[in-house]
């Protein structure tokens, strides 16, 4: 595989994750700090809040981008770690393909969750 573009995209995905997952974490996990600054987000894990986000096209697109960026960045990172174990080129080819298939499978399953609920 051509390593330089793969690596460059990993860094671009990291920048996307920085902003989008940052937003997700602030909304979902830092509610008390947000309300201290006067922005009350309610209870983000309550079923009604979950359904509200799932029915919004904006949130679905948001989560689609987050999923693609994190899966690409994380799986390429995992491949990077595995590639340092000095496996044979044939074994690396199997791992490359397995990571692509599993990554696409997880992406499809995870995106199906907000679309179908």
């Amino acid at each position, binding site marked *: 595989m051509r390593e330089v573009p793969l690596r460059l995209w990993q*860094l671009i995905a*990291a*920048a996307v*994750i*920085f902003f989008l*997952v*940052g937003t997700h*974490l602030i909304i979902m*996990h*830092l*509610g*008390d*700090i947000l309300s201290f600054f006067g922005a009350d987000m309610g209870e983000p*894990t309550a*079923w009604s809040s*979950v*359904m509200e986000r*799932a029915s919004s096209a904006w949130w679905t697109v948001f989560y689609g981008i987050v999923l693609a960026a*994190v899966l690409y960045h*994380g*799986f390429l*990172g*995992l491949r990077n*770690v595995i590639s*340092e*174990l*000095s*496996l*044979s*080129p044939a074994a690396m080819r199997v791992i490359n393909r397995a990571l692509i298939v599993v990554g696409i499978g*997880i992406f499809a*399953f*995870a995106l199906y*969750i907000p679309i*179908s*609920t």
Partner: protein
Amino acid sequence: MKAQSSERRYLENYLGIKGWVWGGRYRLERYLYTLHRISGLALLFYFLLHIAMNGFRLSSGESWTSLMDIFDTPIVKFGEYLVLAGFTFHALNGLRLILQELGYTLGRPKPPVYPYVDALERRRPIVFVMGGVIIILLVVFIFNFI
């Protein structure tokens, strides 16, 4: 030319995983890299778990709500804090690595005049500022979990 035969064209990684911890005179930045790797793998593991957990939404609203009730314990809260801490470290250290890789934090090349200051030492203040920001954020985040 046995060394170039088809089955030995890849490089041997002699240190293996032990090299993450010790491989000679490692400096601070090398250990940050090891921590970056460990936090990255841990975040990936958590991410997959997070997706599996969200899969509970597919069965019913009740199963989601009861899962959230089960998770409402101090141990899970502490685990969430650790994930947030891992993300904060990985994100800020990653930003440092990206800026460095794109050449923004390298500074101008200097002639090697005595007393020598190596490139790592010249960039060390960036590491300390990053460490300071991480510590401040982690202290602020504690207030959300107590």
